[in-house]
């Protein structure tokens, strides 16, 4: 077993990833536009330039919960013995391959800890998610780039939160120091060739200390469950926090912890797939019933649901776990700058002054 701490010099990063990607599918953050804009996780290919000093626009959620995935394929076939009948043949999707997510952040990983509760912790296990999750390793990097929308420390995480990660990366002046956090990490550690020196480890320690001192965000979430329920019917309150919402759904698409999906059959001729695709509770059609009735007809009820799900219903169901990793993506990307921190912070308190 290789337990030594490893080191990857900046100019060795690609060759290290080249080696790892011979063994595993590796996803890395890369820019899809010039100048480090629109950063997403993409399958690693030799020669790619990684962007490790910015939060990604979209987290790695899609690696385990893709925006679209086939649950199964189907095929209508004429039955030989009874020509008037059609038989449906089903085919399972392909099994997942071992995967490493390289360069995630603590908030990204925390997102998966939330999804796990729903999809794989039981009692109802989603086989497809669980299989992929099982095969996925995280090489997470300590975070030193908080901005004015981040609040991970407020929701039980933080820039040095190692929970859920398998490898831990600390950037220092010369490169990256890599430690194993779980047994699953050992094969990957073995593929890294250079051992960290004492100097590297000491430098990494300093970076850790500095990052650990950061208290990111000052949102108080204790008792938000109850406060939300008290606020539920206060229309003025929701008008105040989300009156300007456009129902655009960006917040849910960029969110690492939003997991609502839609299921549709997409067919051509006699063949098709049943697919699962990301849905958004900010959309009118999300709760639209067949009768035409919609229990959440306006953006206010929909935004209220987003807050309630993350800060009240979810913790109520899953031992107090808040379904938000504090990544700030919804705040940063909202076209009208709606701030979920404000929506949660002000839940507490009486008689809301309407404006």
């Amino acid at each position, binding site marked *: 077993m290789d337990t030594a701490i490893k080191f990857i010099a900046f100019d060795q990063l690609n060759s290290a990833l080249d080696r790892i990607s011979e063994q595993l599918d590796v996803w890395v953050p*890369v*820019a*899809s536009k010039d100048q480090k804009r*629109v*950063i997403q*996780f*993409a*399958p690693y290919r030799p020669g790619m*330039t990684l962007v490790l000093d910015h939060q990604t626009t979209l987290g790695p959620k899609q690696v385990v919960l893709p925006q679209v995935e086939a649950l199964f394929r189907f095929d209508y076939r004429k039955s030989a013995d009874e020509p008037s009948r059609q038989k449906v043949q089903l085919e399972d999707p392909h099994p997942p391959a071992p995967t490493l997510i390289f360069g995630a952040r603590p908030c990204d990983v925390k997102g998966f800890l939330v999804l796990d509760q729903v999809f794989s912790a039981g009692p109802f296990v989603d086989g497809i998610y669980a299989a992929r999750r099982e095969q996925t390793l995280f090489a997470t990097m300590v975070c030193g780039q908080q901005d004015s929308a981040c609040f991970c420390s407020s929701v039980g995480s933080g820039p040095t939160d190692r929970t859920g990660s398998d490898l831990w990366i600390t950037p220092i002046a010369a490169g990256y120091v890599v430690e194993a956090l779980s047994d699953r990490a050992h094969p990957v550690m073995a593929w890294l060739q250079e051992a960290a020196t004492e100097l590297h480890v000491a430098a990494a320690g300093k970076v850790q200390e500095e990052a650990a001192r950061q208290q990111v965000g000052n949102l108080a979430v204790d008792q938000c469950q109850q406060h939300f329920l008290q606020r539920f019917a206060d229309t003025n309150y929701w008008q105040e926090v989300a009156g300007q919402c456009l129902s655009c759904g960006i917040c849910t698409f960029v969110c690492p912890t939003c997991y609502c999906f839609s299921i549709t059959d997409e067919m051509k001729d006699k063949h098709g797939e049943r697919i699962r695709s990301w849905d958004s509770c900010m959309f009118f059609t999300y709760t639209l019933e067949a009768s035409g009735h919609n229990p959440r007809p306006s953006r206010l009820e929909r935004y209220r649901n987003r807050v309630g799900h993350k800060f009240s219903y979810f913790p109520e169901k899953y031992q107090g776990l808040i379904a938000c990793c504090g990544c700030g993506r919804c705040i940063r990307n909202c076209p009208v700058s709606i701030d979920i921190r404000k929506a949660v912070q002000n839940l507490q308190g009486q008689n809301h002054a309407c404006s």
Partner: protein
Amino acid sequence: MTQSHDNPAHKQALTIVGFLCNWCSYGGADTAGVCRFKQPTDLRIIRVPCTGRMDPLFIARSLILGADGVLVSGCHPKDCHYAVGNLYARRRLEVLKRMLPFMGIDGDRFRYTWVSASEGQRWQQVVTEFSEQIRSLGPNPGVTGKSAAAATA
């Protein structure tokens, strides 16, 4: 709808979608048939009540999915069965025709024209010309395939 055209020299079938209005051009095509005018066979006709019914998106969708050509034909302007349907249509169709190349789709793959029910000969000429034009452009690659996974470095 996409076909594999491995050998462009080979005169394989083209997929040309024709949207013809019920009152004039559909009749014109019928006249051409009754008169036994020889026509290329690549056109698949969809009858519409009026060119005013033509949503430019019908055409966009056909071309995006890989139809090799789209032909829209209706009554001559001022002869519309519904008086003004084709007067609305020609603006929309011309705007679409000019927009297609901006998105990288060849505007020559789309043509709109007017053929009355009595113009069998003209119909023959329109179809022959347009099929030739599409044949010379070759197969339409469409907007290819599945999206490449996320980003490129």
